[in-house]
């Protein structure tokens, strides 16, 4: 284009490019065009909206964590330790101590007249006098009671107990962690061999025709809602497994775990298959040229090269299994017992939140501990996702560089 040629101008760019512009003027015209305020504003807007994922992650952490904060900081107490006070003694207390003693907030306390206050103090004294059980003096919402065993009255050894609705609520989270890990372990034992083997077969050995059947089928499986898998496990799978193995509790970690495995298979298959296919063709061609059989190429060349990807698939599968709710809620029996047997019923973290949140008092200790469980769950899956993604990213970079 010569400098003398007329430059087409757009409507709206009035007088920007007369026919006799020099090259530098043209450059300036383009820059001026870019700095139009409408366009600039829209671009800022697009950028702002694109930050929404970051904002959402932050909000999730902030708002789930916020409800759990008093428990995390150890500010909650459900211990009934105070000595009973007479009304005279009580009125001499400073306002904040009195409020704590009765169990109301300071601002609420200011709203009461002397008569109401006296009644409240008497009622509290009566309540405290009735408490004979020494366990009631314990703050069951402390970190220690939530994660260490305690010997409760009537038990002959320290135990981990989750009983949030008993007279003395017991919030030990260990049985729930064990339940989650048990169901996840069964799920991974079931889904990792199947998923990885299928990924090897589909990516390395299968004919294109088989591939075209298997891949949509696994997509179909990942599209089945988890509540449907839970329903299937509850109605059909539990009966079948019980007839085969003759165990006593119909719903247990085995049934829940296998159904959970069905939900995890697509995750493991997809990531492992992706890692296996991203191994450069030159690897397998070199091995084939050296006289290796296709199965040897798959087993001794491609699989070792893609191993970090397969490992990442397992990690991400673990995260998915830990976080799955409906399947374990419906199919794992939900009894919070500490046992190593997979034929016992188990109660997972997710199922506990789902089953109990609807019935708790808003803002109470039980409510906050359920949010604490949610925060811990979020942290666990956050870390597994981060690690999994990082492994996949590094592997891809290495294989593409190779």
């Amino acid at each position: 284009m010569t400098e003398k040629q007329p430059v087409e101008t757009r409507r709206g760019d009035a007088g920007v490019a007369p026919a006799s512009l020099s090259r530098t003027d043209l450059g300036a015209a383009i820059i001026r065009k870019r700095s139009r305020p409408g366009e600039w504003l829209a671009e800022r807007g697009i950028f702002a909206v694109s930050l929404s994922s970051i904002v959402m992650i932050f909000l999730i952490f902030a708002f789930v964590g916020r409800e759990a904060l008093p428990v995390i900081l150890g500010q909650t107490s459900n211990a009934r330790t105070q000595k009973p006070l007479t009304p005279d003694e009580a009125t001499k207390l400073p306002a904040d101590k009195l409020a704590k003693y009765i169990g109301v907030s300071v601002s609420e306390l200011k709203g009461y007249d002397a008569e109401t206050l006296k009644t409240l103090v008497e009622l509290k004294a009566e309540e405290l006098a009735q408490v004979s059980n020494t366990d009631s003096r314990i703050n069951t919402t402390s970190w220690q009671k939530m994660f260490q065993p305690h010997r409760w009255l009537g038990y002959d050894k320290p135990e981990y107990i989750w009983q949030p609705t008993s007279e003395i609520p017991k919030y030990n989270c260990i049985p729930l962690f064990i339940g989650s890990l048990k169901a996840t372990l069964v799920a991974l034992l079931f889904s990792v061999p199947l998923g990885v083997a299928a990924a090897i077969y589909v990516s390395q050995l299968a004919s294109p025709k088989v591939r075209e059947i298997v891949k949509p089928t696994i997509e179909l499986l990942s599209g089945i809602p988890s509540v449907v898998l839970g329903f299937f496990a509850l109605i059909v799978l539990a009966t079948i497994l019980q007839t085969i193995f003759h165990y006593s509790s119909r719903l247990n970690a085995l049934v829940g775990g296998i159904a959970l495995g069905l939900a995890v298979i697509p995750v493991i298959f997809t990531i492992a298959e992706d890692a296996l296919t991203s191994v450069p063709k030159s690897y397998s061609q070199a091995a084939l040229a050296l006289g290796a059989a296709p199965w040897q190429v798959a087993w001794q060349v491609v699989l070792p090269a893609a191993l970090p990807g397969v490992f990442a698939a397992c990690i991400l599968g673990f995260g998915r299994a830990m976080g799955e709710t409906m399947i374990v809620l419906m199919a794992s029996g939900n009894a919070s017992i500490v046992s190593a047997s997979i034929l016992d019923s188990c109660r997972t973290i997710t199922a506990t939140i789902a089953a109990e949140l609807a019935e708790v008092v808003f803002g109470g200790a039980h409510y906050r501990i359920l949010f604490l469980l949610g925060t811990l769950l979020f942290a666990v899956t956050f870390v597994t996702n981060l690690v999994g993604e990082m492994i996949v990213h590094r592997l891809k970079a290495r294989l593409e560089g190779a």
Partner: protein
Amino acid sequence: MKIRDWRSVAFTGATGLATFCIVAMVVVILGNIVWDGAAQMSLRFIFGGTSEGMFDAQKAGVFPMIFGTVALVVLMTIGVVPVGVITAVYLTEYARHESLITRVIRGAINNLAGVPSIVFGLFGLGFFVQFVGGGIDKVFFGGQLHYAKPALIWAAATMAVLTLPVVIVATEEALRAVPHGFREGSLALGATKLETIWKVVLPQALPGILTGAILAVGRGAGEVAPIMFTGAAYYLAHLPKGPTDQFMHLGYHVFVLSTQSPDIERTKPILYGTVLVLLLLTFLLNLTAVLVRAGIRAKLRAANG
């Protein structure tokens, strides 16, 4: 040589068997549901309500749940698609490839996709219902309870956050598939970058964007854990009248029927019917979108000559 052959057969056989097992399980599950669910299908079942007995196979229907699920999914789509598409536009058209902010956004999207659905439920309750809803009540209604309770709109908002990564990833893929020549041609004709994106890139990517919306709908129709505390109801006598009402949901209904029924054997036919309707609904929505997609593709092809 003989040993190698034996091992080859064993290896191929074992991996092939694993593949076959997975396919067989999918066939068994879907077959079981379709077989037992089809027996319950009738116009009365689909268009009937639950007022005459929720657990009675002869009288119960699923229309309120279909209505609730569709309403949820429609509201969710309205919320998630614009945000998801704009994010994808930023990532493909504006962001520098390996800049820090791009990497952080991508990391956040990946992580959002991995957050357990029950955590979304807690988030929806803590953020949308209590914080946003409570805030609206405080500012506009002087503390009266209008928005700070589980409602259709909060369930849809929670679901929109959950499906955001799905829409972003699919749209990004679609935008990347638009050839660079299109953009260059448009810019060369004097269009601004924004005009290029709006009038050239997005129309070309429309089928892909719709695919993203479809995937989001499929995901949104089936998730139950996030809506348990944010809007789904165990039982309602009426259809929801507005976005601040609670609603009944097919997936939640499956959970309710299978865990709360007084007599599971008698409830089984309704249960199978409801599960089949849930699966059909997701497939039907998918099918509609696939047809729309095919139509758009044909139109684009005709326009491009």
